[in-house]
């Protein structure tokens, strides 16, 4: 196989790494803004597919197929986002004689429409969140539902996903504006303005189940991921396993996920998302028919390389493990490191990475999409890397992540690292007590990156010495003998001070 990666950023890099380990040559595609992007420079071949806007590059099926034929690629990995859940793209690849590394176009299509998938899951006997069964033509349709179900309600784009095209509505008076807004997002992001409404599940947790199947009917689940912590409907921290899911519940929700996958004849890697209420009742939310951003936490805990398995399955091979053989062995946590300023309400912070030192050592994995000297472009998702820490227990994994965050040193742009350092030190988080509203309340009661007096003083001293050096530009004498004596002298002074 020669594999074209129809994506960019860390996930394209992740796929290229897997291909390299399997001995498959890779083809990267890149927009003008990505000439020097990591995925573009590390692949065996790289093809320019258009200007910066995704609509003119990463979303252009024609140019992707042209790149494939030009380079003689025989397979396509879509990553996540962009065209990953576009059934027509999957079909176009197949029609062009390419192996599509993912599920069948039918599976994608079946899950592409939230309304359609909700209908099918209801038939399959999977619990779904109460809501409108069809698209709402106007805000008045939604108002009717809201009236009976009671507010708040959730407005959703039927073609939506990844936190885009959804909005909570607190009362009927906010409905018209919200309706317009979601419809506009639905249209601009998904080219389909069908939207509907769902009842709100109280104090919900987002629990998702990883499934993996081959083209010979073998289908297993790799447990759940805890994805409750979100900002603006964007996941920020994911864990595997969930602190609130025990083995019995894991079996039940895993079975439900397999039922969902079987209902659409699913193969390759996929994720079934559930909403779970305080009583551990779970409801089908949607299925992501692709690799998930947070797939690494499952990989660390189950010891399985999901991208490798995707490629093997696409090649027609059978799974190398059974449901009985897979068990959660450790605990893993992922923090998505974004180019954004947590001190300025998480405003995007594009720019040049002037310095970068990544955390190393035991139990730390960093799936990076950038490098030192790289200019983070304005045009795409601001994720720099996914930092994953794993250990024998949740507490140890959290402490390991805090250690890694402290070692993650980056200059030139602002990042969400200080936010994560504060969050993972929070006692409620550490106790695993949270719902989807947790981050907002946490941010309300927390001053991120507060400087103690010691830290302020250390900063002032450091800056003053640096300024002094600027005025001197003198170098330090290094003759060791002398230095040793000077240091001893310094010691003396130090002792005198104490």
């Amino acid at each position: 196989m020669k594999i074209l990666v129809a994506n960019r950023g860390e996930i394209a890099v992740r796929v290229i790494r897997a291909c390299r380990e399997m001995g498959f040559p890779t083809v990267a595609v890149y927009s003008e803004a990505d000439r020097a992007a990591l995925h573009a420079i590390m692949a065996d071949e790289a093809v320019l597919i258009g200007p910066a806007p995704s609509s003119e590059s990463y979303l252009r099926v024609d140019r992707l197929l042209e790149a494939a034929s030009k380079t003689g690629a025989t397979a396509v990995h879509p990553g996540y986002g962009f065209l990953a859940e576009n059934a027509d793209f999957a079909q176009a690849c197949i029609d062009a004689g390419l192996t599509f590394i993912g599920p069948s176009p039918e599976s994608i299509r079946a899950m592409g429409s939230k309304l359609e998938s909700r209908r099918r899951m209801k038939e399959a006997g999977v619990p779904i969140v109460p809501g409108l069964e069809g698209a709402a033509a106007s805000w008045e349709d939604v108002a009717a539902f809201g009236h009976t179900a009671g507010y708040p309600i959730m407005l959703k784009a039927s073609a939506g996903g990844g936190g885009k095209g959804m909005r909570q509505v607190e009362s009927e008076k906010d409905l018209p504006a919200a309706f317009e807004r979601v419809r506009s997002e639905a249209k601009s992001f998904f080219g389909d303005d069908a939207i509907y409404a769902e009842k709100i599940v109280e104090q919900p947790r987002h629990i998702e189940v990883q499934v993996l199947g081959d083209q010979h009917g073998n289908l297993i689940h790799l447990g759940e991921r805890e994805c409750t912590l979100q900002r603006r409907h964007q996941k920020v921290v994911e864990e595997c396993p969930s602190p609130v899911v025990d083995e019995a519940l894991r079996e039940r929700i895993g079975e439900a996920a397999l039922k969902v996958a079987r209902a659409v004849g699913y193969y390759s890697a996929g994720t079934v998302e559930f909403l779970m209420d305080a009583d551990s009742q779970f409801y089908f939310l949607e299925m992501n028919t692709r690799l998930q951003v947070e797939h690494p936490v499952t990989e660390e805990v189950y010891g399985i390389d999901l991208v490798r398995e995707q490629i093997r399955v696409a090649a027609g091979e059978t799974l190398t493990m059974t449901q009985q053989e897979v068990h959660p062995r450790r605990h893993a946590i992922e923090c998505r490191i974004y180019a954004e300023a947590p001190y300025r309400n998480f405003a995007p912070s594009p720019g040049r990475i002037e310095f970068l030192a990544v955390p190393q050592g035991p139990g730390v994995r960093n799936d990076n999409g950038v490098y030192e000297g790289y200019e983070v472009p304005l045009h795409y998702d601001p994720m720099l890397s996914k930092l994953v820490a794993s250990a024998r227990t949740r507490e140890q994994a959290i402490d390991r992540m805090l250690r890694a965050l402290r070692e993650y040193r980056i200059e030139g742009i602002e990042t969400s690292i200080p936010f994560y350092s504060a969050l993972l030190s929070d006692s409620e988080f550490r106790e695993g007590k949270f719902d989807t509203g947790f981050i907002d309340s946490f941010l309300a009661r927390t001053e991120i990156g507060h400087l103690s007096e010691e830290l302020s003083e250390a900063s002032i001293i450091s800056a003053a010495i640096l300024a002094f050096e600027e005025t001197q530009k003198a170098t330090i004498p290094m003759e060791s003998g002398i230095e040793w004596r000077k240091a001893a002298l310094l010691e003396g002074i130090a002792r005198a001070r104490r």
Partner: protein
Amino acid sequence: MKFIARHEELDIPVEVERLGVGYRLRVGEKEIVADLVAAGPRLRALRFADGRQYLILYHRDGSEYRITLAGRRAHVRIDDPLSARRGGPDQPVSDASVVKAMMPGRIVRVLVSPGDEVRRGQGLLILEAMKMENEISAPRDGRVASVDAEAGATVESGAPLVTLES
């Protein structure tokens, strides 16, 4: 050598002189002996004479220093006493009558027109940055004097978007 350090709205007098392999400082009334060990292009270890230390990452922009330590970020401005007395730190003058872009991005939609009366918090336009739509709202009640950006345009951080008048 004497400096004025400005940190979190405070001006602190600082004095620095070389001492052996390190430095002696006077920060306010406090005397400190420390070394600032160079560790590569951007890292330094601020090592006090008693052994305590902080590993810092720094960035200098003129007399503005950004110091990252223990996963937090501090901003310190160092001036020599004269310039400090002369100019002092330049605070960006916030002009409430001009609504500016707080981040670089693309104008998706303009929600108001010149002459519109707007209330505080009302949406003026929608700015898309890094795949998120961000609604820019009015900082106060007023009338739209001019719309300084058009839909589809890409704007830099700080670019004027809408001008309000009372």
